């Protein structure tokens, strides 16, 4: 049985708030994390985490630095497989098929081809701007020049980078500034139109204007994508997300609708964190 019942427990929805979308919590679930634990060698970094990722919603992960947000996010595309001695336990069911992402029987390529990721530090490839954005399409077998051109432009526009680079698409990605590189990485992740987008503190290297662009983008993208965003900026979490999970020392302390987490948290620890009393 997939712990549907446990996951479906809906936190109290405050219908009077302008923020909460009606019945947001009853939206279909894109992925369900079930009793997930994770170890770096012998060091346990995640403890028995269970939470849903709602489809076409933004789920924010907040918590003090070192609490396991990145570790958690990197389970979704099996990034931990790249290094030896890492171990997962539990399940992450990717819906609608119910593929268990972290099962050793699942080819890590399956989730990676369906789930895109943007890292905390920009990591463009040593190629041109154009080829960076086209890379994901090319390895999915897209050869048609017109489709590539169209998708590259669309992705760069969405990442609020098009106007700055449209005249030098074939220049090296390394010629861009840090903030531009990060937006390029966002465009690169968007180009293959993944079902889920993982964002690990995507704006921590950006200036306020670029950050605002990205936040707008995230809000826009939720029409068609499921987004999980790690942020240490609580205002950002409140602005862009519909659901929030609060992590502490590798445990999920509280999960609920963003509105509820930020106004009436059930756990005192959440309350302390969002009011800035620790972390």
């Amino acid at each position, binding site marked *: 049985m997939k712990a549907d019942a446990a996951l479906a427990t809906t936190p109290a929805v405050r219908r009077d708030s302008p923020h909460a979308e009606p019945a947001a919590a009853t939206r279909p679930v894109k992925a369900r994390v079930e009793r997930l634990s994770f170890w770096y060698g012998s060091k346990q970094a995640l403890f028995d985490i269970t939470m849903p990722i709602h489809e076409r919603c933004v789920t924010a992960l907040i918590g003090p630095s070192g609490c396991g947000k990145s570790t958690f996010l990197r389970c979704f595309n099996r990034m931990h497989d790249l290094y030896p001695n890492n171990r997962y336990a539990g399940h992450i069911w990717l819906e609608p098929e119910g593929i268990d992402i972290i099962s050793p029987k699942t080819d890590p390529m399956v989730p*990676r081809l369906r789930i895109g990721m943007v890292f905390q530090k920009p990591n463009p490839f040593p190629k041109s701007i154009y080829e960076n954005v086209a890379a994901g399409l090319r*390895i999915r077998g897209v050869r048609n020049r017109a489709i590539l051109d169209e998708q590259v432009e669309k992705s760069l526009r969405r990442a609020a980078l098009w106007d700055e680079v449209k005249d030098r698409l074939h220049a090296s990605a390394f010629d861009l500034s840090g903030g531009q590189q990060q937006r390029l990485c966002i465009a690169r992740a968007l180009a293959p139109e993944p079902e889920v987008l993982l964002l690990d503190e995507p704006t921590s290297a950006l200036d306020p204007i670029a950050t605002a662009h990205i936040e707008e983008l995230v809000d826009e993208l939720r029409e068609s994508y499921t987004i999980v965003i790690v942020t240490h900026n609580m205002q950002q979490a409140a602005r862009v997300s519909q659901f929030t999970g609060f992590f502490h020392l590798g445990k999920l302390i509280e999960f609920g609708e963003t509105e509820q987490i930020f106004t009436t948290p059930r756990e005192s620890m959440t309350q302390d964190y969002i009011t800035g009393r620790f972390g």
Partner: protein
Amino acid sequence: MKSKQDSDSHGRFAPSSAFLRRRALRARLMHTLLLLTGTLSVLVTAGIVYTLVRDAVPFFAEVGLLTFLTDTQWTPLFAQPRYGILPLLAGTLTTSLIALLVAIPAGTVLAIYLSEFAQRRLREVVKPVLELLAGVPTVVYGYFALLVVTPLLQRLIPGLPGFNMLSAGLVMGIMILPYVVSLAEDAMRAVPDALREGAYALGFSRLQTAVRVVIPGAFSGLTAAYLLGMARAVGETMVVAIAAGQNPRLTFNPLEGAATITTYIVQVSLGDAPYGSLAYRSIFAAGLTLFVVTLLFNILGFWLRRRFREVY
């Protein structure tokens, strides 16, 4: 007590002027030391070039640069000596090219395997073994070419002469392979993992990550690896002297034997060309040619690195 303004302008941990003087002195000392070592290495290089040029200049004065570069015969020890570098240059380039055709593809593939596919434990065993192989004396490789590889090739290619550039080039390729693998692997290891993660997250396979991201990311290190391999091949002496023969012949056919620039240099150095004679001086002209060839390849490498530079 100090006034407020005083403590503001100096602060609690403001260094004393004696401390600052010592620090400045240390900095000047280090600067001078570095300048000296730098100058020394430049002087050594200049000394080498001077030695070459000193005897090459009277040679060119007598033979003429144009003759040297265009004559198709190299027969310094004949009664009617001819001094055309082309036959020796052809021998050097042919054997080096064969060596690079072996070492670059094989070296790159092995480096990709070691850097991107092999378990760490295997890598820790293979790397020292490679470095050991790089330490085998070249004369051993020379006899390996002459006594093992040539007879094998003769079975495949009937009529292949005992001295041929193919065998020498192949073995020279094997000889510089560990070198190229080791340097290429270092270059690929130096590519940050963040780049690999970006590729895997996008759905790249291991091979795609290696070929499309790691190799372009390691471009300048790889160029350096290939260039050093090339420099070793061009300067290699024993293998070609033993396996390719010592007969200067203007040919690019790997199935023939031919002398290279280095072969000629040892041949004459071991013989009894009188000091100051034209034959003696021809060694330096040949050496200078070798120097220029290596320099040209280095400039090419420098240009390539600038053209395809990567910054992290």
